[in-house]
């Protein structure tokens, strides 16, 4: 197990380096001179040169890359051009709201998605299935920002049940996490259904039924465990979707998280913040996929770690 983990972590290195290199190159792909961008539009040429030296932009590309990687390893992403605070602080301030938003969305969307999927599979082609799959296909077709606006209009404005913006209490989390999780719940439902339908047709399910087990036990004990394997993989992929989706949802609900920080940074061309956030999001995504691979093995005894 430990050996497997070490091997997987080592295997990530080339991908991490390439991702890092792309993010590093990002500054140099931006139109215009990054030093001038950092110095501000009114700076005189001397100041721009000073800033260039200060940021190390006068060195060769390989040297700059080494400097960049060194900075990242020390958790030093430079200074935000907009607020003049360190990028690491900016991110630290915004991290938790996004983290909890993502976790809550994942939690409820997996629960509801799997429940819908199982119900649809067990009553395949009957009305629970029809309703479940209609909901699911609608869920993947409704863009998050539109859903967020509709939910906010209905529950916050017309009914007045829930607050519109802010992140103070659990009630603030209800609508944003619902909005963010809807598409994932829909995807999970479709995926769980097809996985379950396949499993329920297997010989060992027939054996379980034949030996007189009641249907509930067959579905939960024999079906669920086996159907979970592909579902867990799907969950990992969806986490990336949630990270991306949070960018849009945070704008709708004025959420004080990383997504809005990124949108503002793009607006203001605050490239150190963009760079750090893109790196952070990808890193999270890569790590989550690793965790999923490990979980995969825990559920599925047929997979041995080598």
């Amino acid at each position, binding site marked *: 197990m430990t050996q497997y983990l070490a091997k997987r972590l080592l295997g990530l290195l080339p991908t991490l380096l390439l991702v890092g290199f792309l993010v590093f190159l990002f500054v140099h792909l931006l139109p215009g001179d990054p030093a001038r961008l950092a110095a501000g539009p009114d700076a005189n040429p001397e100041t721009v040169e000073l800033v260039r030296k200060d940021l190390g932009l006068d060195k060769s590309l390989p040297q700059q890359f080494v400097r960049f990687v060194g900075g990242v390893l020390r958790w030093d992403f430079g200074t935000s051009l907009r607020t003049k605070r360190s990028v690491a602080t900016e991110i630290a301030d915004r991290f938790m709201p996004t983290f909890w938003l993502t976790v809550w969305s994942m939690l409820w969307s997996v629960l509801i998605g799997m429940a819908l999927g199982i119900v649809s599979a067990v009553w395949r082609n009957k009305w629970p299935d029809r309703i479940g799959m209609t909901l699911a296909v609608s869920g993947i077709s409704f863009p998050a920002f539109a859903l967020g606006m*509709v939910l906010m209009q209905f529950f916050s404005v017309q009914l007045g049940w829930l607050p519109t913006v802010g992140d103070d209490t659990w009630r603030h989390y209800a609508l944003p996490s619902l909005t963010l999780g809807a598409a994932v719940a829909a995807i999970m439902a479709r995926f769980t259904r097809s996985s379950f339908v396949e499993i329920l047709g297997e010989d060992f399910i027939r054996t379980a039924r034949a030996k007189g087990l009641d249907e509930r036990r067959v579905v939960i004990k024999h079906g669920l465990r086996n159907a979970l394997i592909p579902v867990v993989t799907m969950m990992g992929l969806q986490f990336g979707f949630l990270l991306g989706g949070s960018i849009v949802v945070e704008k709708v609900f004025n959420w004080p998280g990383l997504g809005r920080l990124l949108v503002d940074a793009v607006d203001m061309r605050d490239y150190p913040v963009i760079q750090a956030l893109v790196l952070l999001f990808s890193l999270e995504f890569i790590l989550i996929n690793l965790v999923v691979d490990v979980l995969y093995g825990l559920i599925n005894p047929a997979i041995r770690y080598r």
Partner: protein
Amino acid sequence: MMGDESAVTLGVAPLVADERVRTPWSEFWRKFKRQRVALVAGAFVVLLVVVAIAAPWITPFDAENYFDYEKLNARPSATHWFGVDALGRDIYSRILMGARISLAAGFLSVAVGAFIGTILGLIAGYKEGWWDRIIMRIADVLFAFPGILLAIGIVAILGGGMANVVVAVAVFSIPTFARLVRGNTLALKHLTFIEAARSLGASDRTIIFRHIFPGTIAAVVVYFSLRIGTSIITAASLSFLGMGAQPPTPEWGAMLDAARADMLTAPHEAIFPALAIFVTVLAFNLLGDGLRDALDPKIERQ
């Protein structure tokens, strides 16, 4: 009499059989036409395309330059079917023109992504070895960025605007198509008919494009349709974030963003663009589901 009849039938039978030769196309149609929902969705997509093409001639008002200052934020009425927005523009006309933008963005970005992705997937799957490793490593790296994040990064580099959004969405469609086609290519290349083609002296190019590529088309078509829905949502999301279409362009996502300011007094300004995106994406998704059921050989056994 009996004998005559059977004689006639016997004489006709071969002809009928000839007409019922099962081509891949007729097989597909036989299965696809049984799916009512997908048929309706397909018809709706055709209607959307017609509307998108004819939009400039069928809109009752100019989508960008008509302003009715007397009716700011007016609710839907007989003259303005979907109401009027905060600047006095007719929302119905803007939705129709928006169909043009969203469909073009969705279709173009997926077409570019599918084209490049398919070629890369064919090369990776057929050549294996280094080609495969390099192409799949690049795909892995592109996959390491959650979809919309990659698009935002690209827009940050290229600048805002719909053209750049199309490029951004196309780039993140590439790896999915590359993986899909590579998998199919790996499965096909060891089959006997490929072996036969090679022993006849067919070049790599002929084998890839004449023999392997047709085998991957079904999967690509299904994915193409499903992907258009996702791409329309992503493009609209970028516009909603202020990184895509700029005002006064009647793009659905941008319209929703503009409607946020007047949500309390004029919710209809948000409802119609939201419905437009939903119905359009839903149609492509339902069509894609139907295509998959009709084209996927795995479904057959159920």
